[in-house]
């Protein structure tokens, strides 16, 4: 897979407090990556380096081979789209059309192109409202999808979703993750920050665990969530099915319900071969 973001020995501080300490990381094309960790561990600070909102104090971040220190945030915004944690902080226009067309207008798209991307972006997030609707009339879940459409309209190759599931109901969480998965299938790279471990296990391919400004684990959900002691030390809980499998002394660590069902059915077949 092609490496598109490379973080090398990244250190960053707010005033005197080092919030990122010696981060080394690669993100690859068409990956669905999740960043987890407690509030204040540096997740948002790290991803803000990917679109140039923050620049390293030490070390480097390169995006598609370009050092973020050598380019502007405006240029990086064409490649890396950022959906902020609270959708309301990103919404300012009077209508849905104005809202979604703002980005492509600034990128000097033609009127016809703007029209096309507004429709296709809203379609992609399943927001089938009148284009004249005011964003304030939308539900929280719809506003979350609207800001994703804002970012999609600029056609970035990388999309960062900063806590899109916090404070959202179950259906919205799954809708957002499904949109993210569809984008990966279309060739985009998605980086999502979330506290919902079960959701991450269901949707993400790789999990990066941060603690106190450092990356302390990085791997497949199955591998990361089998490290119970590490998770406990930093206050994260593995999915219930993983805890259940551990309490049953299974060798495997399933992280999704489907994986647990597979493990259980295999065991049933081993013990009762006559029914399999």
């Amino acid at each position, binding site marked *: 897979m092609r490496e598109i973001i490379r973080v090398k020995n990244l250190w960053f501080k707010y005033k005197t407090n080092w919030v990122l300490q010696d981060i080394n990381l690669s993100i690859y094309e068409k990956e669905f990556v999740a960043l987890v960790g*407690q*509030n*204040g561990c540096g997740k948002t600070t790290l991803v803000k380096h990917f679109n140039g909102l923050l620049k390293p104090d030490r070390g480097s971040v390169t995006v598609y081979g370009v050092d973020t220190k050598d380019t502007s945030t405006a240029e990086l915004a064409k490649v890396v789209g950022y959906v902020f944690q609270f959708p309301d902080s990103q919404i300012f226009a009077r209508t849905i059309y104005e809202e979604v067309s703002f980005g492509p207008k600034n990128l000097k798209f033609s009127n016809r192109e703007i029209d096309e991307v507004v429709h296709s972006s809203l379609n992609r997030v399943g927001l089938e409202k009148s284009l004249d609707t005011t964003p304030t009339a939308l*539900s*929280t*879940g719809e506003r979350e999808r609207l800001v994703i459409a804002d970012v999609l309209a600029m056609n970035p190759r990388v999309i960062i979703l900063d806590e899109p599931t*916090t*404070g*959202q*109901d*179950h*259906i919205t*969480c799954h809708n957002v993750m499904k949109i993210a998965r569809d984008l990966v299938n279309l060739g985009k790279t998605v980086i999502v920050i979330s*506290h919902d*471990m*079960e959701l991450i296990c269901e949707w993400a391919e790789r999990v990066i665990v941060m603690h106190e400004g450092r990356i302390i684990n990085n791997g497949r959900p199955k591998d990361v969530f089998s490290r119970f002691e590490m998770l406990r030390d930093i*206050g*994260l*809980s593995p*999915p*219930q*099915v993983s*805890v*259940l499998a551990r*309490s*049953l*002394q*299974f060798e495997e660590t399933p992280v999704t*319900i489907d994986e*647990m*069902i597979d493990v*259980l*059915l295999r*065991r*049933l077949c081993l*013990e009762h071969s006559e029914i399999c």
Partner: protein
Amino acid sequence: MQAIKAEGLSVKYYMSDDYILKNVNVSIREGEMVLITGPSGCGKSTLIYCLAGIIPHHITVEKYEGRVLLFGRDISKIRFSEIAKICGVVLQNPTSQIFGMTVLEDLAFGLENLCLSRSTMEKKLNEVLELVDLKKHVNTDPQDLSGGERQRLVIGSLLAMNPKILLFDEPTSNLDPRGAKEVLLALNRLRKLKKTIILVERKIQDIALSVDRIIALKDGSVVFDSSPRDFFSNMKLVETLGVSSPQIVRLSYLLREQGIDVKIPLTIEELRKQLIEIFGGG
């Protein structure tokens, strides 16, 4: 004894087309821990505001029909200062309820206004600090606390006033996993004090298993009012409400679909025991 009761309660906000609550009848006993849930816009927060007397005392509405009884008395006819001594409300965003320069100052504010003696105040503050586990942060600026700690500080400030009923509007949904866990622990400690606890939450998988009863609202009406086990045994309803159920509950349903007979569990341990019987452990 009955702590709060809503009788035929219907509420309509100004500028809204429809009633947000429609003929709601709920009754909460003293010492009970009750979870109110339902999809966005179903009227959960409005119900909490009514049960706490904020509606009609502080938020005026176009229509307020039926009544809320607080220990048998019509809440709309009780002075709000008196209601506040009985009911403490913890809002979704704790920052809006914190104003002290230190944790101790914030906790002491209510007690100072009750003109208690210094020794009584100190005793009370120590008890509260213990309950919400903030002893080591006595002199900390609340701004420097984590989300979970701030939420616990608000709970502590209310507890200092010794209310009989505590109402929470989404106390954990915006917290990180550690913060949510800490608040849940604090809630369980309050339960032991026999406080009446009423919670509104959308993300219910962690909290639902600790409560006595779940009340579910949909489009302003009560569609469910019974135990967590009954709630999660009705997967069709859970799905209709769009709320998330614990992973072990969903696993049990899928096992049933595979012809494996398991009862809906409320804890991992309950499911573990059943699976050991079926599959054998280890």
